[in-house]
C-alpha cells in the first residue's frame, strides 16, 4: 500500500550506495520491466542526441526544435507517470483542495512482504542514472549555448533543463521523504561515511 515515507533510515534504499550491508532483503538483479526501462532512457537520450546532431540531421532549426520539445514532453510524461511508479515505486503530483490551496504530494511505495514487489536493483540503478545524468547534461548545454552566443538554442535548452530538472527534483523529494530534508539527509550520509571509514581504519590497523 502506498503511504507517505516515514523516518525509516534503515529500510530505505540508499540513493548513493550500490551495496548496502544492512539490507536483509534479497534484491533481484534482473530487470522486470524491460520495455519501461528502455523507454525511460530512450526519450531522454534521443533528445540529447538530436540536440547534438541537429546540424547534421536537418538544416531546419524549426524541425529540430520541435522534435526536441516533443521528445522532452514525452519523456516528462513517461517518467513522471509511468517509469517512476513501475521501476522504483515513487510518485509525485499536485493536488488542489477545496479551498483552492495547492499541495505537492510525494509518495513512495512501502515495501510489502511479497517477493515480487521488491524493487530490483538493476532497474533502480538505470532509473537514477538516467534521471540524474540528463539534467546535468542539459545544464552543461545551457552554459555552452550561453557562452558561445548560440542564443536561439537557449530556449530549447532551458525547456530541457526545466522539464528534466522538475522530474529530478520531484523524485528526490519522494526518495528523501516528507519529514527529512535534503541537508539532514546529506549530513547523515556523510556522517555514516565518516564513521565507516574510521572504524574500517581501526579494524585494519
Amino acid at each position, binding site marked *: 500500500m502506498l503511504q507517505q515515507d516515514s523516518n525509516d533510515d534503515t529500510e530505505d534504499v540508499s540513493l548513493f550506495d550500490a551495496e548496502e550491508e544492512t539490507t536483509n532483503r534479497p534484491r533481484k538483479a534482473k530487470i522486470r520491466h524491460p520495455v519501461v526501462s528502455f523507454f525511460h532512457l530512450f526519450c531522454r537520450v534521443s533528445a540529447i542526441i538530436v540536440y547534438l546532431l541537429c546540424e547534421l540531421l536537418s538544416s531546419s532549426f524549426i524541425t529540430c526544435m520541435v522534435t526536441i520539445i516533443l521528445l522532452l*514532453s514525452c519523456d516528462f*510524461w513517461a517518467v513522471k*507517470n509511468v517509469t517512476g511508479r513501475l521501476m522504483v515505486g515513487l510518485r509525485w503530483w499536485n493536488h488542489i483542495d477545496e479551498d483552492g490551496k495547492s499541495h505537492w504530494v510525494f509518495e513512495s511505495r512501502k515495501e510489502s512482504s511479497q517477493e515480487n514487489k521488491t524493487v530490483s536493483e538493476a532497474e533502480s540503478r538505470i532509473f537514477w542514472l538516467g534521471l540524474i545524468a540528463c539534467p546535468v547534461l542539459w545544464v552543461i548545454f545551457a552554459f555552452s549555448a550561453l557562452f558561445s552566443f548560440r542564443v536561439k538554442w537557449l530556449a530549447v535548452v532551458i525547456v530541457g533543463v526545466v522539464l528534466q530538472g522538475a522530474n529530478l527534483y520531484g523524485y528526490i523529494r519522494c526518495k528523501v521523504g516528507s519529514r527529512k530534508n535534503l541537508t539532514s539527509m546529506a549530513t547523515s550520509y556523510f556522517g555514516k561515511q565518516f564513521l565507516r571509514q574510521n572504524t574500517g581504519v581501526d579494524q585494519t590497523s
Partner: protein
Amino acid sequence: MAEAEESPGDPGTASPRPLMRDLKAVGKKFMHVLYPRKSNTLLRDWDLWGPLILCVTLALMLQRDSADSEKDGGPQFAEVFVIVWFGAVTITLNSKLLGGNISFFQSLCVLGYCILPLTVAMLICRLVLLADPGPVNFMVRLFVVIVMFAWSIVASTAFLADSQPPNRRALAVYPVFLFYFVISWMILTFTPQ
C-alpha cells in the same frame, strides 16, 4: 506535466495513469475556453500540456517562408516561445504580488489555454492570406483578430478575476490585456514573405 488529480492512477497496483485520460482532460479544457462560463475545471485540474501545444502551433504558424536557409525562421520561433512563456510568468508574478490567491501553475494554465482563440485567429488569417492581398483582406483579418482577442480576454478574466480582491481587479486584468494584445499584433502584422 504535473497535474492536479484526485486519484493518480490506482494506488494499489503499479498501473500507470492512462494516456487517454490526460488527453481527454486537455480536450475538456479546450472546450471550457471556447465556451467560457464560471467553472473550476481550468483551475482545479490544471495542466500545462495545452499551453505547450498551443504555443508550438502558434510559433509554427508565425513562420515566414524565407528563401535564405540561414535565417530559416529560427529566431521567430524562439521569439514567440519566449514572449508567450515569459509574458505568462510575468503576469502570474504580477497577480501574486497584487495579493491574488491563485497558484503559479494555475495562472499559467489559464493564460496558456486562453491563447486558443488567438491560435484559431492565426489559422484563419493564414487561410485568408492565400487570397489576393488588399484592403478587404486586411479588414477581414482585422475583424477576426479583434473578435478572437476579445474572446481571449473574456475567457481569461472569467477565470482569473475571481482570484483577485475587488479593488485590484483592473490592475490584474490590464497586463492580461497587454499580453493578448501583443500576440494579436503579431498575428495581425504577419505576412508570409
